[in-house]
Structure formats: structure tokens, C-alpha cells
């Protein structure tokens, strides 16, 4: 079963990389952007076949390693 996780910076955390990407896009003519925030994406292929159990495991992984909850939020996208 494959599960995807998206990790994003919390709202109040400064994202200088996102800012620079925003500026670059602006310079390329994409001038109607309000904000760019950079994040991380993970695909986890697990042997677990029960979607609920797999999701719980991935949630634990997020809390323990994949995300730093002081600055980041995680979102488990789909179990399939």
C-alpha cells in the first residue's frame, strides 16, 4: 500500500527559499503570485494492507521523524 505525505512549514515560520522562488517567478513574468511556500513530499510504500493501520503508522512516522512539529505541519494525502 502506498501512502503520501506532504510536509509544509507552519504559517508563522519564515521561508526564505519560498521567498526567493517567489521573486524568481515574479521576474519571469508570473507577477500575480501572493506567496510561495516550499515543502516536502514523501511516498511511503508499506507492507501493511489495512488502510487505517497504515495511516496510523505513517502518522507516527510523521510525528517521530518526518516532520519537526515546532515548525512543520504534515498532511497524509491518500492510502491506496
Amino acid at each position, binding site marked *: 500500500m502506498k501512502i503520501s505525505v506532504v510536509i509544509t512549514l507552519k504559517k508563522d*515560520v*519564515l521561508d*526564505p*527559499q519560498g521567498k*526567493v522562488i517567489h521573486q524568481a517567478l515574479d521576474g519571469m513574468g508570473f507577477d500575480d503570485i501572493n506567496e510561495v511556500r516550499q515543502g516536502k513530499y514523501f511516498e511511503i510504500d508499506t507492507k501493511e494492507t489495512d488502510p487505517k493501520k497504515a495511516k496510523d503508522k505513517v502518522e507516527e512516522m510523521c510525528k517521530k*521523524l*518526518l516532520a*519537526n512539529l*515546532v*515548525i512543520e505541519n504534515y498532511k497524509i494525502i491518500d492510502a491506496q
Partner: protein
Amino acid sequence: MKSAVITFPGSNCDRDMDVALKKFGFKNKMVWHQDVELPKSDLVVLPGGFSYGDYLRCGSMASKSKIMQSVINFANSGGMVMGICNGFQILVETGLVPGVLLRNKYLEFICKNVFVKINNKDNAYFRKISKNVLELHIAHNEGNYFCTNDQLKEIEDNTQVAINYCDPEGKIEEPFNPNGSIKNIAGIFNKEKNVLGMMPHPERMIDHSLSGEDGSHFFNNLINNLK
């Protein structure tokens, strides 16, 4: 006095730290990250470098390595643990000290000498140190100290700020903040003050002809405090 320096894959200041500790009288042992037990030590040091290639987040992989459980137990039982640079990043990832270290504000790798003011001398690291301001070296890409407002309040209420970036006279102001850290914070303690994490490298300032000697002040004072 016995010390131990942990070497992770990608550590690169471990041997500098070994040289510094020995120069000031510590009997130092190098410990591999896959070891399970710490040798009997009065001080454990997590050195600078790029453990695990800074994968995921700086220090995050190293914080889960085998030896770290022993380091965490040692710290929780009152043992002295000091993390320098990448070692500081590892400490925040273990949760032994609060906050995180973000990418530097202006996205530059910063490698230069800075001045730091000692904010709290009521601990075994800085007790009786004669100077109030030290000139030390920094070299990092992720040294921008960040924590939530609640954490900051707690850190300040418990006088956990160890050192702040400042000018040569000790003035703590924004122009002397190299990386965007909240309140110019360069190093912090845990609540009990036996764990210290800091971005500057004292081990790079121990030779008059090569650098400066403020690191010597630090180590000399440290070993005297531990005796």
C-alpha cells in the same frame, strides 16, 4: 576529567574537538554512532559537521542513531552534554534543548568570526569565566534559531539563553545577528543547564597563532569547573 566525542557519518569537527579537549586536560575517547554504550564520561560532545549529509533536516537522522539513546539517558540523569553547530542541530532534534535551527535568513553559508555575549554564568559551562564577550568562529547554513512564542517565554523565564551574538563590546543588536536568530540567540541550555547547544565553534579558537584564544578561555574554565 573524562570526555567522549561522538562521531556520526559526516561529522567533520570531531577530531578538532578531540585535539581541543586533550589540550586542556580531558582524557577524551572517540565514540562511533553505532555503539550502544557511552564510556564513563564527565562530558559528552556532539561535534560539528554534516551528519548524514544533512538529509531530511539537519541533525534529524543523527538524533535517531543508536548511541543517542545513551546520550539522552546520560543527559536526563544530569550528565553534561554539549552540542556544537551540527551537534546543536542534533540536540534540538532530540528535544533535549527547545526550538529548531532554520536555514540562515539570507540563504548564505556563513563562515566568519563573531562575538558572543555570555548571558548566564550560573552553570558548569561558564561559571567563573573571566570574560563576558568571546570571539568565536561560526560556519553554518542552518543556524537561524527559532522557537514558538510560548517556548521563548519559557526559555527566558528559566534563563536558558546561554550566549547571544553581539558586537565586540557586548551590545546585542540586530546588525550583529549573522543568521536571523530570534533575539540573537547563539546558544541555549536545557532547563537544568547541564545540556548546552551552540552554533559557534570554541574548538577553532584555541591557538594564538592560528586563530584566537577565546576558545582556550572556554575550555580552561570548563575543565576547572568540572574538577
